[in-house]
């Protein structure tokens, strides 16, 4: 009876964007994600925290099916976006990834010009009517990623020639240029100075107005600053998930508590 009601509520509340149930991920014999259930709300920022190797990136990659590209990876369970099972045979992963953008943990600009890096997605999906429209998208995306001032005079130089932090922002610009509904960001500020970090956090907050954002971070302060919900992963398990304020002030699980107070990690 109780179960029934909860199910109803899940379906009714239209602001659940991503819902995952019983997700298992195996890399060969390595059981990297163990039975994770999580519901990610629309128009919120959700932070994934947890010690290195606990499976944050792995779970993130399940949401846009990037694990498909890894031969040894095997995903089980049920992941729905807007109620649609993304692992269904009928779903085209290419379509899905256009909707679910991703910023990777390691900056990976293409060996093309800065301009072409940003214009890549819009060009593929035909988002711009003409050159002027494309220019506009590129400028807007670079501005949002706080890279415009540094890059505007060198748009034709290779993106691989930028510094590590600039590359990271270029990848953010590239991802937002395609206008995804969901943005997955894997440690987007790991190589950024405090000013650029603040700008990216501002961007994340701005994106929240229209999208849902999932961000992996090793910085507790950042999770506390930008996110409304926080999920704590440990050894492949989702240990605790709830309002960011609750997680940081009143953790229920002793593992969460020791992680955020710096005792494990």
């Amino acid at each position, binding site marked *: 009876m109780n179960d029934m009601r909860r199910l109803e509520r899940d379906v009714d509340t239209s602001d659940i964007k991503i819902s995952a149930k019983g997700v298992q991920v195996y890399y060969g014999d390595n059981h990297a994600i163990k039975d994770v259930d999580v519901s990610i709300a629309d128009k919120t920022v959700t932070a994934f925290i947890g010690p290195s190797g606990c499976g944050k990136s792995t779970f993130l990659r399940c949401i*846009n099916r*990037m694990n498909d*590209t890894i*031969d040894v990876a095997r995903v089980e369970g049920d992941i729905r976006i807007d109620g649609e099972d993304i692992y269904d045979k009928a779903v085209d992963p*290419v*379509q*899905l*990834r*256009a*909707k679910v*953008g*991703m910023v*990777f943990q*390691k900056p*990976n*600009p*293409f*060996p*093309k010009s800065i301009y072409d890096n940003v214009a*890549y*997605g819009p060009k*593929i*999906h035909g988002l711009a009517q003409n050159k002027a429209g494309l220019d506009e998208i590129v400028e807007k995306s670079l501005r949002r990623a706080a890279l415009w001032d540094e890059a505007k005079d060198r748009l034709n130089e290779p993106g*691989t020639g930028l510094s590590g932090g600039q590359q990271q922002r270029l*990848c953010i610009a*590239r*991802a937002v240029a*395609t206008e995804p509904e969901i943005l997955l960001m894997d440690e987007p500020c790991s190589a950024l100075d405090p000013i650029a970090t603040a700008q990216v956090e501002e961007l994340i907050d701005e994106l929240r107005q229209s999208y849902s954002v999932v961000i992996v971070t090793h910085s507790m302060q950042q999770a506390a600053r930008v996110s409304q919900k926080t999920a704590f992963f440990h050894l492949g398990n989702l240990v605790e998930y709830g309002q960011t304020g609750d997680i940081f002030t009143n953790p229920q699980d002793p593992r969460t508590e020791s992680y955020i107070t710096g005792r494990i990690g």
Partner: protein
Amino acid sequence: MSSFWLFLIIVSLAVIGFFVGTSRAMSVASGDKRKLHSLPSYYGSNIAIFTIVPSFLLLVIWMLAQPLIVSSSVRSHIPADTIDPGSTIGLVMSDVQRLANGLDVAVSQGFMTEEDARSVQAGSSDIRARLGQAGVVLGSSVRPEVLQAAQEYRTMTSTGDMLRAIFVIGIALAGFAYAFRKTSVTFRARNTVEKTIYTLLLGAASIAILTTVGIVLSLIFTTGEFFSIQACLSEVDNYEQTHLAALRAADMNLQNCPLGNVALLDQMTSVTGETFSVTTGDYLSAFADFFFGTTWSPSFGGGSELGILPLLWGTFYISVIALLVAVPIGLFAAIYLSEYASSPVRAFAKPMLEVLAGIPTIVYGLFALLTVGPLLVSAFGDDGALGLNWMQGGTAVMTAGLVMGIMLIPFVSSLSDDIINAVPQAMRDGSLGLGATHSETIRQVVLPAALPGIVGAILLAASRAIGETMIVVLGAGAAARLSMNPFDAMTTVTAKIVSQLTGDADFSSPEALVAFALGMTLFVITLGLNVFALYIVRKYREQYE
């Protein structure tokens, strides 16, 4: 003592030196490794190096020098009047050496005692028959002075061998002792070993470079000879034209280059009143005839036209067809293998392609001659299936080009495969993560990233196509011709190099020497291509990190 045994002795001394050095190091450090500058094994290696390197060098030098010294000394003792009019001292010396070796063989196989060998007389016993028993065949009956020289040769050689053994072993022991004495706690054995390894590697590298330089120098030298003959011949033409009447009157008919024939030159000057001399202009016209001449018709009697253009055209045409076949197929195969194929398919297909690369080119030539040529004729030839009558015979540019293309497929595909695999997975992830399809990712990210490397691979394939010989000889025919029809027989630079130098060519004639000029041209072209390819490949490497 034979050089083989000597070598074994040095090596065993070095091995002993290694162990002695190791334990010596331990004992000077009174059993505590940490007191030593280097690990004990370095001290051992140090002794081994000092034992083996100087003595081995001495052995090699001795082995090179001794035969020269001995034979020059023996040669000076052979009286000049004993050499037959038709013979030379060199032939006599080779008789001497053969006899001396024959005696050695006979002694070592037990048909003669050492005493016998030393005391044989040319007349008293029939040496030929006795050596024949030992399996040594001598051409003519042995003359006393040859026998005497051979005996001298043997004595000198055996004394030399003995001295060699003494010196080499002496040096080895000296090196051993020297390095042993140097073994102390503070001695930097590790650095010495490091230096030796460095020298060894440097030596290997310099041998490779020196060989290249040697090859190039010999090519340049003979090419220069070719052009000076051609320049001289062109001056002969000029000279004949201007002094036609005078030369006719004197009944002189110049054909070869008169340089070097002083009497003839003097005669020419007195007949015509003009000294014969080769000018820069003649060189220029020789260069022009060679590099811009459109006819290739060598004739060993003289009056050949040696223009390289028809050959370059053939080379170019065949290579282009080969690349048109090899590049798309090879590249697509590489893309399939590296991007799409499942690992079982790859495990099967890659070795198959590599087998294709291992087939000797002569086999491809046979394939061209026996299969592809007739097949093409049956389609494009007289009464062919298409009724086109474009092709006269099985040997044609198309035949050779197609087969050469097949030969190059694995070359292009395995190089491109490596290059495509070197594009980081993160690059593909980035594109896929933006919602690009697999083939969009390949076209827009992977191939552009790999492009410089692929271009390099294609250029390397091109320089192989240009240098290929056997397929051309069997598949394209031997006619040098400037034609646009790909079904005509044509020939290439390499094929002509072979045909100019095979048979009983006179190596001082321009018709034979032209082969070196052709080789030099080809070398410059392929070198240029390779340098360009390497430049591009290297530039590509800098792109990631």
